[in-house]
Structure formats: structure tokens, C-alpha cells
């Protein structure tokens, strides 16, 4: 089985984020870029499928600026992906999700695949566009948000489950197709030290920006970020004075009902 997984460098959730001076974008100075969240779950799922179907191979594909994009591709290789493709993003270009999807779809169509896994959204902009848009571009079906995905070797088909309002929808489908994964229903592995070292010596395939433009036409972002702000700091914590735990619980219930109005 040929598996593709799309990943994106996002700011380490542990770094302190702040807007740039103009308040129009994230200040990327000092930000550490990592493979995490939905994307990490997607890589894990691709690797689990690879392990369940011997002879399978996983290619990680990422679109973004150097060097951060190369770094997360190396993280994916260290986790067990077989090959990696970096789709070049020229410096100065601020892509929107549709542009990213177009660029990625060009890299995806270069080799035949059975399944393309992608996080249902990126952890930073949470746009949720790339998976369905790549599927559209490639003319294949897409499913999401998927919470369970298995390969049935006897039937040669995938069994998957989608989270829908109030329940689960089970689907049997055959590739090629795109699956947009819900986060954290698997437990992403940690790379082994030897694999981290090996991943540093692996060659990453490059798709140049010129090639992307020749393939999908001149790429101009259709949307532009006009303002970027952090949520206001939380205020208004209320300490409850109490003598007994029962009294504290009563007070808490009263406040939730009368002031916060979160209880009927």
C-alpha cells in the first residue's frame, strides 16, 4: 500500500506566541516549529497502517519555508516514514489554505497512492481546508473527521468511522482516497535515537516552486490576513470562602447557576 501523509510545521505549543508589531500576523521570531497535534496523529495513523499491511510505504509531504519544513519532515522520517517531499515555499510568500492545497496536490499527484492521510485541520490556523481541497484537486473521495481507520486485507478495502452529531458513521471505502483525521485517537510514538540520527542523513526530495507554478498555474493567495491578536488574558477568578466541603460545593453550584448561568 502506498500511503501519503501531509504535514505542516506549526509553532510549538510550549512557546509563547505574540503578534508582530503591526498586529497583522504571528511574530515568528524565536518560534520553535514542530510536528504536533493533528499532524502527529496523522503520521502515527499512516505508520500503523503501514505496519498492518507489510510491504507498505509512507511518504511525508510538506509545503512551507526552509528550514522549518525540512525539520518537520526529518521528524516524520525519524518516526518511521520512508520518504519525504518538501514542496518549496518561496520566502516572502504568505500562502492561504487554498494555495497550500494547490501546491500540495501537485506533489501528491506525482506518484500513485492508495491513501492520503491528513489532519482534519492544522494546529495553528485550524482552517480545515487542505484535506478536502487536495481531494477535490485530485478528483478522489475524502472522508472526515475520521476517528477510526483500518485496512481490511481480505476485502482490499479501508474500514473507517466518522464522528457525526450524536454518533459514529461506519464506512467501507477503497482507495485512492483522502482521510482527514480527528486528533488524538491514537497515541503518537516517540522517535528512537538511532532513527533520529538516520533521518538526518536521509535525502529529502524537493519540488521547486517553479515546478509547482508550472503545474498548477501561477499561485496567488486569495485571502490575506489583516489582523492577528492573542485572546485577552483571563480575569475574574473568584475564590470561594468555606468552612466545610459541603458548603463550598453549595456555593459553587449557586454561583454557576446565578452568576455564570452555566447550570439551569
Amino acid at each position, binding site marked *: 500500500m502506498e500511503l501519503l501523509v501531509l504535514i505542516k510545521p506549526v509553532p510549538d505549543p510550549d512557546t509563547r506566541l505574540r503578534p508582530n508589531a503591526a498586529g497583522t500576523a504571528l511574530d515568528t521570531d524565536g518560534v520553535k516549529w514542530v510536528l504536533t497535534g493533528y499532524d502527529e496523529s496523522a503520521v502515527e495513523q499512516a505508520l500503523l497502517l503501514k505496519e498492518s499491511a507489510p510491504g507498505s510505504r509512507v511518504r511525508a509531504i510538506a509545503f512551507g519555508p526552509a528550514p522549518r519544513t525540512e525539520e518537520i519532515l526529518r521528524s516524520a522520517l525519524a518516526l518511521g516514514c520512508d520518504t519525504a517531499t518538501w514542496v518549496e515555499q518561496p520566502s516572502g510568500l504568505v500562502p492561504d489554505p487554498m494555495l497550500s492545497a494547490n501546491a500540495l496536490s501537485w506533489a501528491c499527484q506525482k506518484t500513485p497512492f492508495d491513501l492520503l492521510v491528513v489532519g482534519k485541520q492544522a494546529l495553528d490556523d485550524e482552517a480545515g481546508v487542505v484535506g478536502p481541497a487536495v481531494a477535490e484537486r485530485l478528483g478522489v473521495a475524502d472522508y472526515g473527521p475520521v476517528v477510526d481507520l483500518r485496512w481490511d486485507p481480505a476485502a482490499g478495502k479501508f474500514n473507517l468511522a466518522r464522528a457525526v452529531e450524536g454518533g459514529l458513521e461506519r464506512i467501507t471505502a477503497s482507495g485512492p482516497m483522502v482521510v482527514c483525521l480527528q486528533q488524538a485517537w491514537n497515541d503518537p510514538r516517540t522517535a*528512537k535515537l538511532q532513527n*533520529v540520527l538516520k533521518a538526518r542523513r536521509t535525502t529529502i526530495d524537493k519540488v521547486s516552486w517553479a515546478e509547482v507554478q508550472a503545474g498548477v498555474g501561477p499561485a496567488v493567495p486569495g485571502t490575506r490576513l489583516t489582523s492577528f491578536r492573542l485572546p485577552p488574558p483571563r480575569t475574574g477568578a473568584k475564590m470561594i470562602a468555606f468552612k466545610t466541603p459541603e458548603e463550598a460545593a453549595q456555593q459553587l453550584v449557586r454561583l454557576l447557576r446565578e452568576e455564570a448561568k452555566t447550570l439551569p
Partner: protein
Amino acid sequence: MVDFSLTEEQKSLQDLARKFAKTEMLPVAAACDRAGRFPEDVYRKAWELGLMNLNVPTEYGGSGLSVFDQCVIVEELAHACGGMTTSIIANCLALEPILLGGTEEQRKRTLPAFCSSYHLASFCLTEPSGGSDAGGLQTRCRLDGDHYVLDGEKCFITNAPHASLYTVFATIDPALRHKGITAFFVPRAAEGVVPGKDEEKMGHRASSTSTVKFDHVRVPLADRLGAEGDGFSLAMRTLDHTRTPIGALATGIAQAAIDYAADYSLKRHTFGKPIGEHQAIQLKLANMAQEVHAARLLTWHAAWLIDGGQRGSLESSIAKCFASDAAMKVADDAIQIFGGYGYMKDYPVEKLLRDAKLTQIYEGSNEIQRIVIARELLTHYA
């Protein structure tokens, strides 16, 4: 060109160690410390990821890292728990005499087992009658045909209750002092090898430490490392390689102390402002930052020298001594910044002080390090 920046490869090793420290060690560190629990599950995971036999070359299945790379990893692990780090890197200490003094046949016979499955080894030098004066050790080895017979007792041996192999230093004749010391590797399964009960310790409580008795233990001639009388030099060369990572371990503890203290200083208010805005606290934080920065650079420098093929005894002594003293000072300052809360076990900083203390004692006490440093210094003036 001198370069003080980490390579991309070193950064990815650092990331790996940091992630392991944060997700596997830190969540259980306080509970293991309180209970004196040896978290074997954590050590097994460390082994699985390749964090345990860092110095063993890849040809035997180890990680084959330079001393510098080991330091980068050890600092990150120690940031989460000094005690667990001591146990995780104890294999490096115990197997180093085999790497340095073993024949190819001996290395092939011993090392792969540690890399193909989870096993612990212990380095047995210190004895109840003394650790600093290694030339005066009393454990005897007597040649009897094609075997040696070992008799004696070792103490304060890291991981000893859980180890499957011991590297042991014994003497053919105590009157010969350094010249009589001879090294062996001895399986735990050998008859007469008796590890003692786990010691109750002040810090590093997630690590395990005990005595090991050798009672008429028969060791094949083929399990002697080097020649008779080579043992002292082998022990010293081993410690030359492992002392620098102890500097990194101390640096990790000290960095954790700064991280906790700086964060707390911005959250705790007195006299209408965060204590971090009082100058007395700022001066303390500034001093702490200087200590840690210097400790890290001294450690990196010593490691760089050793990786470049130099012995680095002097520089590794300086690094270990300075970094461990720094860890004590910085942990002490962190407690002071936390005030009364710092003294409470519900907060993380008092553990750092207890853990830092050991780094001034083991792998050559700081008094011994200073003797080495001064002796070396004076040779340039004599």
C-alpha cells in the same frame, strides 16, 4: 573555527531527550522521589528509545554518541529528574571500562546483550572503607588456576540491586596500592555475588543504590579487563569520560531551578508587584543565570576536548566541580525565591537541592576534583 552552537543533529537529540523528560519522567518524578520508587517502566522506555547505552558504539547496537552529544541529552533528562538520570546513564559508566579496556572478544561477548534487550550494569569501585582513595581499595582478587577468586564488599553502587553485570575493581595485593588494582566484569548470576538492600537516600530517590558483596566469587581469567595492575588507570580513564556528563546532569538540575524560580517570580506578588520586579530577586536571578551559563559552557568545552581525542582530565574536573557547585547554589537560590513554599514538598524546588547535593559527591568528590585541578595548575609553575 570555534563554534558554540549545536548542530541540527544535536538539536534533534536535544528535542528527543526533552520530550522524553517531559512526557515520561517529569509526570512521575515527584511521586518516585517521595516513595523512593525505582521507576523501571520509565527506564525500559528510555532503553527502547536508545537513551540508555549512549556511549556504546553502534557496531554493538548502542547509540554511539560523542561525549558532547551525551551531555546535550543528559542535561535535558536531568531537567526533569536528576535521580532517574543517574540510573539511566549508569550503564554508560559501568560499560565504559569494557569499551576502554576490553578486548574485541570481550566487548562482543558483553555489550550486545545490553543493546538488544533491557539490562542494567553497575560500576563497582567505591568500598565501605573509602571512595576517594581508590588506590587503597581492599577487595581482593587471587589467581587460582584459570580463575580469579574475588572477596570483598563494594558500597553506594548505583543500580546494583537491578544489575545483571558488574564491572569490579579489586587488588591482587593492597600493599601494591594503585599498582595492584585489576578490573573484571562479573555477572550477577555468578555464585557469591550478593547485592545488598536499597539504601534510603536524601536525593536521587528514583535511583537505586546498594552494597555488593563478593564472597569467593570465581571469575574466569578471560573476564579480566586488561592486565593485572591496569585497573586503576582504567578506572581513572573511565571517569575522565563520564565526569563531564555529570557536569551536564548538574547543569540540567540548575536550569530547572532557574526555570521554576523565574516563572514563580513573575506570579508571586508582594508589596504590590511581582517579586521578580524587586531588585533583590532580580540580582539573584541574574547570578543564577550566570552560574548555569558558565556551567554549561565548561561542560561543553570539556566534552569538545575529549571528543577531539584529548584526555581532558583537568577540564572535565573543572566542569564537574563548577557545575555541581553551581547546581547547589542555584537550587538554594530557587528555594529562597519561593520563600516558605520553596521549603514545602508540594513544590518542586526543594527536591532540586537534595538532588544537586549528590553531584558534589559522586564520580569523584569536589575536594578530589580540586586536588586534581590544583595539582595540574601547579605543574605549570614548578
